[in-house]
């Protein structure tokens, strides 16, 4: 019994369950990572990873501006990400990749303004930690009073994705088919982009603006390696994201007790590192499976050759876009 409790004490360092910041981080982190993962499944399918990252960058301008004028950064992130989503739709988010030079300049300018705001904000109020909080997030500094806001914003993003579930899948198969069936493809795209803006700004506050793409794309990309069914992919993504976020919180709390410095590592680091590990594991598992499938498929198709369905992957989706 003593060894078991010693091990448990090693894993759950003293004070973990009574700490108010940890309690808030578990609730907010759980909600945010769940929402990000569910929204992220469609981000990956629609090939909008870059758009997701851009929303995070634009949100940073708002988040740092909000910090400068002394309001809660969350509102800055949300407002700027929503405006960014609107602008992207206006200039054609589908063509974003061909216009990457323009996008790069605009995003660079956004981050430049963020740098200015953060500099002004931190030199005025002498709170250098704010830069780290805005760019890399910290779940341990969120006030308990903000929990309902996170939950409501998260639920609204989930509601939009739930409403658009079938049209989003159909559009992912072929926008032409969706259009011919009477789906308002453009409206669906705009609503989805707005839901993504909300999800990204929530994870900007918790995981950090720079790292938000990792939680948006990572669990979804891993889930899509593990299953070929839409409902299961969403369930897997949510499970992976919430588990890894809670594990990250646990490790970050424990790291205060780790030698040599005993000063605590950031939660975001642990979450993003865990996401990368899980993605790599899922990817290698699916490669093994697809090699096995390919052998079966070859037997099934006999001597037919040259199937366009067998084209190779061009690489993992923008996981490391940060």
């Amino acid at each position, binding site marked *: 019994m003593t060894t078991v409790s010693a091990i448990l004490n090693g894993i759950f360092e003293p004070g973990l369950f009574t700490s108010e910041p940890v309690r808030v981080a578990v609730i907010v982190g759980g909600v945010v990572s769940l929402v990000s993962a569910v929204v992220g499944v469609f981000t990956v399918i629609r090939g909008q990873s870059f758009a997701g990252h851009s929303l995070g960058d634009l949100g940073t301008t708002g988040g740092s501006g909000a910090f400068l004028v002394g309001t809660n950064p969350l509102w800055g992130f949300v407002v700027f990400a929503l405006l960014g989503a609107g602008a992207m739709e206006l200039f054609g988010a589908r063509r974003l990749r061909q216009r990457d030079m323009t996008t790069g300049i605009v995003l660079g300018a956004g981050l430049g303004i963020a740098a200015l705001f953060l500099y002004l904000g931190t030199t005025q109020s002498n709170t250098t930690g704010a830069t780290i909080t805005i760019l890399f997030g910290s779940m341990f500094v969120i006030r308990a009073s903000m929990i309902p806001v996170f939950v409501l914003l998260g639920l609204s993003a989930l509601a939009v994705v739930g409403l658009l579930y079938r049209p989003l899948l159909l559009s992912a*198969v072929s926008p032409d088919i969706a259009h011919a069936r009477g789906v308002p493809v453009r409206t669906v795209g705009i609503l989805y982009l707005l839901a993504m803006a909300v999800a990204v700004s929530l994870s900007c506050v918790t995981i950090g603006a720079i790292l938000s793409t990792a939680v948006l794309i990572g669990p979804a990309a891993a889930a899509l390696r593990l299953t070929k069914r839409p409902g299961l992919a969403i369930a897997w993504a949510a499970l992976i994201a919430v588990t890894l976020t809670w594990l990250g919180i646990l490790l970050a709390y424990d790291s205060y007790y780790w030698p040599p410095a005993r000063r605590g590592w950031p939660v975001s680091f642990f979450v993003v590192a865990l996401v990368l590990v899980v993605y790599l594991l899922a990817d290698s598992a699916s490669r093994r499976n697809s090699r096995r499938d390919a052998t079966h498929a070859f037997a099934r198709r006999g001597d037919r050759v040259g199937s366009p*369905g067998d084209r190779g992957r061009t690489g993992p989706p923008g996981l490391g876009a940060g």
Partner: protein
Amino acid sequence: MTNPDRLGGSPEVLCLEGVSLWLSGREILHDVGFSLRAGELTGLIGSNGAGKTTIFRVILGLETPSTGKVLFAGRPRPHRNRLVGYVPQSIGLDPDVPLRARDLVALGIDGDRFGIPLPSRGRRRLVDDMLEAVDAQGFADTRVGKLSGGELQRSLIAHALISQPKLLLLDEPLANLDIRSEQEVVGLLARIAKEQQIAVLISAHEMNPLLPVMDRVVYVASGRAASGSTEEVVREDVLSALYGHHVDVLHLQDRILVVAGKDEGHHPELERERRTLPPRGLG
């Protein structure tokens, strides 16, 4: 409202009357008219850029004709058009899309509706029946991104058919298929037209694979169209008038070659014959 083209035979499903379309100052379609009947398979034949896809877009309501009418069973287009099933040309599927062939078919039932569908036994049986109808049971649980060209084509046909349309449009369904898959898909479409009594319109730049099953042909060249039976349309006088210059029509055993001599870019059939005839002719 009479049209000599549709006297007798099975009921008319779709009729285009004098359809012209201008897009950014160019006339893309000029006075195109033809009708499609239930149970008949029609080939929409023409080279790339002749206007085949535009005709599809007009039928689907994605383009509004500048002049002329598109009538569904004699009436204007219904608002929410479930009468038409559509299989586009290459759909450029993302290999990550988490859908099995059976999920793709199920999206044909209600993919345009909002909200999350509840699984039901009736739904599953409907999907199973449709998978069986296109011989897709063997790959029903395969991820759509991993299907071969022919398998994906059959899944998309099932997806289009499950909402029980009166008209099925297929844009170049035989492009990128190997010969065996090509024959399977053609046979499947002919069977569907007869068994389910729906009108099937297939676009192709090469008519020979469709010759054995085609009830009617709509031949398109530079935005104009001629329609009727193969014997009525694929003739030197008719096609020469359509192209606006002399065209040779050669019969080689049971195959037809259309040689539109003047313009180098206008005889894809000949190009294809050069590539494919020796192995096919001998084999």
